[in-house]
């Protein structure tokens, strides 16, 4: 079974986790100032890279906390996990668009 390193609990089995979509998406401070296309892009458009991808994960059946992880979408290998609010670790560059 794949082990995922929760920043709080350490290495834990994958069945305790839920995927939470792409990480580091900041809600625009003034949505009303955006065009429909820009707002639609914020809501719906995601990178979907082939390679390292920063994602939100939640240790839902453990400590219950969200955190961020860089996962290689090609190999399913977790390159790094880090607490919510922290910057993406060095050496985990974004993969190319699929």
């Amino acid at each position, binding site marked *: 079974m794949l082990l995922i390193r929760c920043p709080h609990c350490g290495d834990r089995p994958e069945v*305790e986790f839920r995927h939470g979509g792409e990480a580091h998406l900041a809600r625009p401070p003034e949505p009303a100032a955006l065009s429909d296309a820009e707002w639609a892009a914020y809501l719906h458009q995601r990178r979907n890279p082939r390679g390292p991808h920063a994602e939100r994960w939640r240790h839902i059946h453990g400590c*219950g906390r969200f955190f961020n992880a860089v996962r290689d979408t090609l190999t399913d290998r977790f390159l790094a996990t880090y607490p919510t609010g922290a910057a993406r670790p060095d050496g985990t560059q974004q993969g190319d668009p699929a």
Partner: protein
Amino acid sequence: MHENSVIRHAGITLRALPGMARFALRCAPADAPRASQALGLDLPLAALTASAGAGRAALWLGPDEWLILAEDGAAETLPPAMEDAFAATPFSLVEVSGRQLAYGLSGPGAEEVLAEGCPLDLSDAAFGPGTCTRTLFGKVEMVLWRPGPEPAWHIEVWRSFAPHLHAHLREALLDL
């Protein structure tokens, strides 16, 4: 009924534990001393640890979340004590006594019964005395706590999942 049953097999006992008061506590880790004062035991701040004493226990579930187990009747006494200790500091204490049931699993090799459905490493090295965590047994979420060095485990499970969990544990035990 499963709630009153005691099952013994291969030197291992699975039993329903008597009712107790339970609380879900949320507060900032920095305010833990206030909670400790009201509880009468140190609120554990290290991940995956529990502290117990005087018939009460505090189980770390997350960085700002604890499960409090206490004697029957604490539902009347603990909330006012917490309110006094925290004064104007924000915190949340929700009584969940009726939400959960507890099972005890004890005896040499009891961890093999848990290994039937729990994916964690339950060896002494990885899950020593005083360790607790929320985890899964099969598809059922449970809180697993090892109070002491002896092979005895405390299992907390939401009431509606309890018959399923008990049946699964029973099958695992009888299969040994």
